[in-house]
């Protein structure tokens, strides 16, 4: 249904997203993490536009444009503002050091490929890899949230998870029904804004956005 070339291009774009994931995991500076997230979202928007072009699905163009606006511009700008206000430039504390984190992420990618293996030869999917890569990005995003302690990086991890899901939805299924995509966008945007408000309040209450300080509630 698709030219070999087209599906390869989509695979390539998905792989670019995965690459930025690794960069985020290896990156210690908060602001750079946000930049990388914006870059990843830009790749995502590109992938979506490509899928829209290849499958002639016009609503995918709209979601691509929304990704561009919301995830490449709005959310990174908001996060930058938050970071500026918090006045934290570096994130030296990591629960897991970088090489180990990378190894774990590598394992997660392989895991994702094995999980999706039984369902990949279904034929309908646009490409072979994109679903597996989408899952890999989701898993790496989850891992980032565990491995990092700053509220902002946890948020970036969450957004990476969302990017992975979005990639799965566009690349594997040419985009979900339009209503659903709109809803998902709305949710992500609101979640990011709410988390932004939280980081401010956490900063006010704890003088820190280090979530390892959040230990008041115990058994």
């Amino acid at each position, binding site marked *: 249904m698709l030219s070999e070339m087209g599906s390869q291009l989509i695979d390539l774009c998905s792989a670019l997203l995965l690459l930025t994931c690794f960069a985020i995991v290896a990156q210690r500076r908060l602001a750079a993490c946000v930049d990388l997230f914006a870059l990843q979202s830009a790749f995502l928007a590109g992938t979506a536009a490509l899928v829209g072009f290849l499958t002639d699905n016009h609503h995918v163009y709209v979601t691509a444009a929304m990704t561009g606006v919301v995830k490449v511009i709005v959310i990174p700008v908001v996060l930058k503002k938050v970071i500026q206000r918090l006045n934290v430039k570096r994130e030296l504390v990591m629960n897991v050091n970088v090489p180990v984190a990378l190894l774990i992420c590598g394992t997660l990618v392989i895991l994702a490929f094995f*999980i*999706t293996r*039984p*369902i990949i030869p*279904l034929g*309908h*999917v646009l490409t072979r890899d994109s*679903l597996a890569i*989408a*899952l890999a990005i*989701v898993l790496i995003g*989850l891992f980032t*949230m565990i491995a990092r302690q700053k*509220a902002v990086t*946890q948020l970036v991890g*969450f957004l990476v*998870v*969302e990017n*992975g*899901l979005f990639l*799965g*939805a566009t690349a*594997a*299924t*040419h985009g*979900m*029904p*339009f*209503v*659903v995509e709109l*809803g*998902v966008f*709305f*949710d992500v945007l*609101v*979640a990011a804004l*709410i*988390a932004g408000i*939280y980081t401010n*309040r*956490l900063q006010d*209450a*704890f003088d820190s956005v280090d*979530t390892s300080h*959040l230990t*008041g*509630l115990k*058994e």
Partner: protein
Amino acid sequence: MTDWSVTIAAAMLVVAPLLAGGLSLAVRRPSLLHVINLTSMGLLVLAELLITRMVLDDGPLTVLGASMYFDALSVFVLFIIGTVGLACSLYMRSYLDEQVARGVIAPNRLNLFFFLFHMFLLAMVLATTANSIGVQWVAVEATTLATTFLIAFWRRRESLEAGWKYLILCSVGISLALFGVVLVYYSSLHVLSDVGTALNVTELLPVADRLNQHVLKLAFIFILVGYGTKVGLVPMHSWLPDAYTEAPAPVVAMLAGVLEVVAVYAILRIKMVVDHAVPASFSGNLLLLLGFASFVTAALFILVQRNYKRLFAYSSIEHMGIAMIGFGIGGTVGTFGGLFHLLNHAFAKSVAFFAAGNVHRRFRTVDIGQVQGVIVAQPWTAMALLFAGLALSALPPGALFASETSIVTALTVSGGGENGAAALPASLAAENGRMGLVTVFLLSAVLAFGGLIYRVTVMVWGTPQQDIVRGEAWTAGHAPMVLLIAALIGFGFVLPAPLRELLGRATNLLLLQ
């Protein structure tokens, strides 16, 4: 009863909370806020009852261009939303007024509270009635977003912590569910041609047996883990006790009584689709696994709790575990028991948290060690607390006894499988394994019973410290407690015919009959 009346009723379900939310931001007088709230709740319940009637008369129906879908199961969940929601609204009247009077809540923040409360309701109604499982996902995530600030409403350090944990854990968990939804869509695209409706339950169910098994299995695991986080199943439960401790009492009652049910409902919807394509033992065993994990873990934690709100929180995890076990075993008895248990738990847990809220306001502490003699200080509340404790321990006057008994019965006789759909795995179906499960179940039940009853009686009896005000005036907030308790006792003896019919039909739906 014609078509348009259903449409209006269905639209009312959405419009009432939406309008109420908008108005809540606009008006200034607190009393007006309550009026709006109660009116919208009343309309919601009215619409819900109307639709229930229609569903019982004519079977499942779709309205508004097939965007909303009502069958016995979703109507049943709507019933819980309506009833507990109404109870909460009544309770909120006295609760919030007192908090404002005491200066705990600035009056202008009430607008925000009500706005979020209505959005929360709206999201739950949408999650229950949406035909598309994609829209359902959006709505469930929206419940997280609407409630996180309600949980952190006091803006203390601990509340912020609880709110943040809740937001992050639930959002992440739910992301996994979205991946599951994507997978379902991926498989349904092979079978259904219209991309716009390929996620609709009404489209999925008829063709479900032709969907790809591998994809559905994978999707179910993701969705179970995702929505399971929202239900608070072990091991995804860690946000739950924190959130339930920190949130204002009416909010907790909604979380524990309604939101958990909605999340379970979301899992059951997918289970119905999956069971068409994959033998029911697949989803059943996963539910059993999580159910037992939750039940046992929660029972152990109940034993060591020193904080009564956390005590009830773990009791929620325990009962959700029990309901999951019921759905996991399947069969008429198990599934019926599970659904019935959801209903009873919603009622009992609301009463428990209403009472806990009252106790907290009077004693200003959540430490069980510092609360004695509630019976002296607040006789009404004490009775409610005692009754809720008894009911949640599954003792006879409450209907939880009946539902838990039917689940354990199903567990004991399982393998017989009245309709083939229900069966434990072959290895477990062996006599020993089954008896082992029953033993674990009963042991956990005894542990939870002991822990709960002991703590509750410690709180209720005795004499309060000198500085605690004694005596309790009857307020509007007591009415819902009494009504819910009455309903619980009533259900224990005889289930009203329409409700029994509803439960029976929902059970049949779940058993794919």
